[in-house]
């Protein structure tokens, strides 16, 4: 039973260490030359809440979860009901649990998978300081065919500094689990790794977004913590500090968005990161950035909504507010990364666009990418760095909001002599003086729209793959499962095209028309309740006559087989 990839779920209630074991498994897979992905599902508790580490390991790159898990290792059953729906199992899957915690609960049993028992608690008790999760980890590694040396080597790296005893106890548990696993039923096994010695990156989406910001030249960040956006800031705080930038924790999101407007006005590329509730608080001032033409970038790591919603779980339902959440006519940029590593490129590109176009750019990431880790080939370098069109010293008759042909007006940076001006969120004339005159309003509205419409976004507006009369259009984290479904269809000789939109605003009407050329059936895939993406598509593009929509809210991720089966059934 050697598959292309193997998927493993490790679950347990608080303190069981599911997350730690998942992390080690991913790192070990990476060490052994595999690619991998780990997402997590967590309860609301700060400490001691139930948690699931959801992994997929493969010899080739992976950017999506599979349809089901091949192996579920349950350290205990505490509160598993709360996320059982997130743990789909196939009949061939194996559920490994500790007899100590009783029978497999209904919510899991109903998948009809095979099950087996492993006395993890008893085994752990035999090792001084032994922990259940290390027993489970050892068993899981052996079951899926991951070399135990890789796991041991990661343990060494990570527990080494905690002292000999800790390491010895973990090692003993690992080996005990591995040993016990030899007596367990088989599960899907990893193919040999294709390790060629090339560099792998192990990165989370939130780190990637933060790093993309740095690569683009962000030097000033003001923000207010919020799950799941905080880790973007946690990455940026120390790295900015080391690279001559500054991160400041603001009193609230109203302050953070305005602080970055100030930072950017003063000439320094500036960014903030947040999640839905924070973004909502920022919209008034995002409008200010747009009207005053002050470049800023906002990373929104989406979580379940509305309101406080489900802070720890994912959804794509901030699409509406990101695209349409400003009052007045407020053209701006919305970029949606579509893989964990693309969080890096997309953020870097968004900063570049914000700066080049002197407007606000929103990066629409989500919890599923942000808090997941991916082991990938080292990503290529992108050439996008912040670069503004600036005014020359003592530029004659300087007009901050000059009506240039491409709509972009040279911006004077404080310190530049002879070009002082007052940036304004009131409608204004070319000089920046407030004006309520119809002609000034109209020409400035035209200019602010024109600069976005005329700009050349190159090929980055979407990732397009394949061909055929059937196309699937999607964005963000829903792209992974779409991509995989279409690969499977193609592998079976079918034809289908994927259009994953990266640039949501301004809507790329012409590009999309070209991409849809020849498409007869269109499947829209998104993770919202109200078909926000479908409505966005209808609003801006002419769609083929036959459209189906696969739209479902979080936190359940979309699975490749759902897409496959819709396409298969579509006559």
């Amino acid at each position, binding site marked *: 039973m050697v598959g292309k990839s193997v998927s493993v779920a490790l679950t347990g209630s608080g303190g069981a260490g599911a997350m730690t074991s998942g992390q080690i498994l991913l790192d070990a897979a990476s060490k052994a030359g595999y690619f991998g992905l780990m997402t997590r599902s967590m309860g609301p508790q700060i400490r001691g809440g139930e948690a699931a580490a959801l992994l997929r390991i493969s010899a080739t790159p992976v950017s999506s979860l599979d349809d089901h898990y091949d192996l579920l290792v349950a350290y205990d059953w505490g509160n598993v009901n709360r996320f059982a729906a997130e743990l789909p199992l196939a009949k061939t899957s194996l559920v490994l649990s500790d007899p100590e915690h009783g029978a497999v609960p209904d919510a899991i049993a109903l998948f009809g998978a095979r099950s087996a028992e492993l006395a993890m608690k008893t085994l752990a008790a035999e090792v001084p300081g032994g922990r259940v999760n290390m027993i489970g980890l050892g068993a899981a590694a052996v079951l899926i065919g991951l070399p135990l040396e890789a796991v041991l080597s990661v343990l060494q790296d990570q527990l080494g500094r905690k002292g000999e005893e800790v390491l010895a106890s973990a090692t003993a548990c690992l080996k005990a689990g591995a040993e016990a696993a030899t007596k367990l039923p088989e599960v899907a096994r990893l193919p040999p790794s294709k390790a060629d010695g090339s560099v792998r990156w192990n990165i989370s989406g939130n780190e990637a977004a933060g790093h993309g910001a740095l690569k683009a030249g962000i030097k000033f960040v003001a923000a207010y913590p919020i799950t799941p956006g905080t880790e973007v800031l946690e990455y940026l705080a120390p790295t900015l500090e080391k690279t001559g930038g500054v991160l400041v924790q603001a009193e609230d999101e109203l302050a953070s968005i305005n602080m970055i407007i100030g930072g950017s006005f003063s000439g320094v590329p500036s960014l903030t990161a947040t999640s839905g509730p924070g973004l909502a608080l920022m919209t008034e001032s995002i409008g200010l950035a747009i009207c005053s033409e002050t470049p800023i970038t906002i990373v929104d790591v989406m979580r379940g909504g509305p309101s406080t919603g489900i802070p720890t779980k994912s959804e794509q339902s901030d699409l509406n507010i990101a695209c349409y959440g400003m009052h007045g006519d407020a053209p701006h940029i919305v970029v949606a990364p579509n893989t964990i590593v693309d969080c890096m490129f997309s953020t870097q590109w968004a900063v570049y666009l914000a700066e080049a176009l002197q407007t606000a750019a929103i990066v629409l990431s989500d919890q599923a990418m942000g808090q997941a880790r991916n082991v990938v080939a080292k990503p290529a370098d992108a050439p996008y760095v912040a670069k503004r069109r600036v005014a020359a010293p003592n530029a004659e008759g300087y007009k901050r909001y000059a009506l240039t042909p491409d709509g972009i007006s040279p911006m004077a940076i*404080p310190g530049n002599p002879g070009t002082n001006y007052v940036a304004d969120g009131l409608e204004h004339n070319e000089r920046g003086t407030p004006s309520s005159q119809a002609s000034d309003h109209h020409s400035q509205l035209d200019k602010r729209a024109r600069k976005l419409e005329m700009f050349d976004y190159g090929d980055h507006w979407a990732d397009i793959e394949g061909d055929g009369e059937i196309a699937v259009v999607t964005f963000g984290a829903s792209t992974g499962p779409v991509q995989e479904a279409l690969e499977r269809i193609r592998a079976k000789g079918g034809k289908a095209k994927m259009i994953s939109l990266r640039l949501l605003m301004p809507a790329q009407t012409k590009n999309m028309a070209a991409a849809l050329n020849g498409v007869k059936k269109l499947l829209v895939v998104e993770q919202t309740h109200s078909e926000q993406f479908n409505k966005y598509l209808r609003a801006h593009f002419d769609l083929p006559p036959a459209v189906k929509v696969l739209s479902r809210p979080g936190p359940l991720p979309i699975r490749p087989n759902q897409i496959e089966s819709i396409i298969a059934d579509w006559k």
Partner: protein
Amino acid sequence: MNAPCQLTHQDFKSDVKPIWCPGCGDFAVLSSVTKALADLGKPREEIAFISGIGCSSRIPAYTQVYGFHGVHGRALAIAAGVKLARPDLTVLAAGGDGDGLSIGGNHFLHACRRNVDMTYIIMDNEVYGMTKGQASPTTQPDWTKSKLTPEGTGISAVEPVRLALAAGANFIARGFSGNPNEVARLIYEGIQHPGFSFIQVLSPCVTYRPEEREWKNLVHPAEGNPSQVMAEAMHRLAGDDGFSTGVLFAGNRAPFKPPSRNVATVTDLERKFAS
């Protein structure tokens, strides 16, 4: 000697015509600001002047420095961003009592506390001028002329200087627009003082609070020297009548400066991800 340093206060005035009503106190505040800037002797391009929304908040456009006329209540946040990103600039912020103490109250609180090196002027007319005369946090509880609170607010007025002190401002002064030279001096001193400097300028709204013309008969110099110790200043301000002018407190907390070094490149950082 540097040519731009010869600028007069006229050189700091723009040619944009103020929207202010004839007789509005804000005209004098504008003169005080430009005078203080002339006295400062810095070139125009090294000064950033930030405001919110309100009659008073229009002031940057009437000066000749880099300015930002932001949204209502957020001047201090923009100003902090400017100063933190560009410590080389001299940063001023200004606005109304509504802008700064009602919708902007949280930023005021945290600006006092954070102590970024900048100077903030509240042009206090005890009313929302721009929106045609509602009560602000500094309005007395028994003022009945607003259509929204026709029987008065019934809420005791904020004393901005006292609040600033409790929140941690490092320099606190009060002036009256009728004494523009004193106000200019206070602004100048506020700029020179490290950390967050707060200057309340009593600036009558002749349209919605014509009775404020009377302020000229009520203001008087604050007695004694400015306190440097917070507890002492608290004590002193506890008995203040709201009309004493001058420097009321001059503390010595070090200004906020977030850590920033230059010891790594972005490429260096990537080692962390590689395996």
